């Protein structure tokens, strides 16, 4: 059965067509959904295609950077702020990044045997906020809260963060291969308010590491994250390596 496809021509129309999200599959760049469809693991009944919705705006609004969910990963790789660009550059390869979007990256759940959503870590470290709509209407929340919730019921409308002022560090453990998913990512940023640390690639969604932020002790990362086993790495390996990656990130912030 062919899916019903909805192609909104404005943000308002996209919000209205999405409604409470029930039974709707949102297509941004298609890079995570199309393999699922090709492999027969997914068969959308109603598809909301956002490519003409106007949700691809990227602008600097005073000291706040705002982006629509349809901003591509390639755009961020080329022009975003340090830590976000650094993680955007490790997503897929150039052709995949040109189609993949920041909204899709935030909403992607685990794939078959690998975790997705590298950009969650730097967005947490940057203190990003996500404005989304769905059941209960529109709301804005910290990116880590958005990631901890039921993303399938939300349509991302905007992602924003304050222009970073401090140092940052990016640590990634992965095989050296264009299409290898990360085993673990650690992003850390410092600002006048302290530090923020985000981890991605270790489970179905990126996680903020509040214990590490407060203690500045890498060993505390085990209190913040509970890594999963998958085809890329074991939970045990991730747990051990996270301590190393977090320590390196903290050292780098310290020394810069």
């Amino acid at each position, binding site marked *: 059965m*062919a*899916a019903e*496809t909805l*192609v909104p021509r404005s943000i308002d129309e996209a919000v209205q067509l999405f409604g409470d999200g029930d039974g709707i599959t949102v*297509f941004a*760049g*298609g*890079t995570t959904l*199309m*393999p699922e*469809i*090709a*492999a027969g693991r997914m068969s*959308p009944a109603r*598809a909301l*295609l956002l*490519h003409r919705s106007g949700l691809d705006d990227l602008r600097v609004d005073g000291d706040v950077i705002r982006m629509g969910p349809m901003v591509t990963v390639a755009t961020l790789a080329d022009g975003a702020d340090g830590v976000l660009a650094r993680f955007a550059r490790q997503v*897929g*390869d*150039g*052709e*995949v990044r*040109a*189609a993949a979007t920041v909204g899709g990256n935030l909403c992607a759940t685990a794939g078959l045997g690998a975790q997705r959503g590298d950009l969650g870590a730097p967005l947490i470290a940057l203190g990003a906020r996500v404005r989304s709509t769905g059941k209960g209407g529109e709301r804005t929340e910290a990116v880590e809260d958005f990631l901890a919730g039921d993303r399938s019921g939300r349509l991302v409308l905007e992602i924003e963060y304050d222009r970073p002022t401090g140092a940052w560090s990016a640590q990634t453990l992965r095989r050296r291969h*264009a*299409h290898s998913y990360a085993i673990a990512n650690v992003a850390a940023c410092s600002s006048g308010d302290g530090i923020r640390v985000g981890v991605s690639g270790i489970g179905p969604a990126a996680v903020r590491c509040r214990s590490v932020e407060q203690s500045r002790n890498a060993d505390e990362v085990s209190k913040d994250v509970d890594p999963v086993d998958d085809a890329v790495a074991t939970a045990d390996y991730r747990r051990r390596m996270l301590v190393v990656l977090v320590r390196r990130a903290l050292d780098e912030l310290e020394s810069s």
Partner: protein
Amino acid sequence: MRLTVNGIEQEISSPPLTALLHVLREELEITSPKAGCQQGGCGTCTVLVDGEPRRSCLTPVALVDGAAITTLEGLGEAEALSPVQAAFHNRYAAQCGFCSPGMIVAATALIERKGGPVERDEVLEALGGHYCRCTGYVKIIDAVVAASRGEVEPIADLPSSEEGEPDVLVKGSPA
């Protein structure tokens, strides 16, 4: 939906979420883009969408409604190969040939974007998502660099089919 494929306007009747790859291969019978992994991981389905290389297996056709698509067939013909095609031929950059359509299309876009000679590391970056399971990478990279420098010797005669061999229907694809 409409697509302009290799300069010819086409009305598309496949369902909107059909991968561009399958629209090209099955509806339009343009078979140079190969159905390799169909997971976005191998690169042999790469085509140009408005001049930019894209994985056709990852692209629902509805997302490119109205776009100009260029496949390998649109780059050159058997009698008049494009510079990258000629370089692949002359420098033995094709072994089994399954990855060549995507490699050549992506390399052509790279050279076009650069507008002049490209360095090896730029080729590695641009083709980093393309697999050659014959592992013929060195000759492929050599061919792309040579094509970008215009170091493509003219091909006097392409091999023609021998007496007694069945004629191969050439629709412009070497694969």
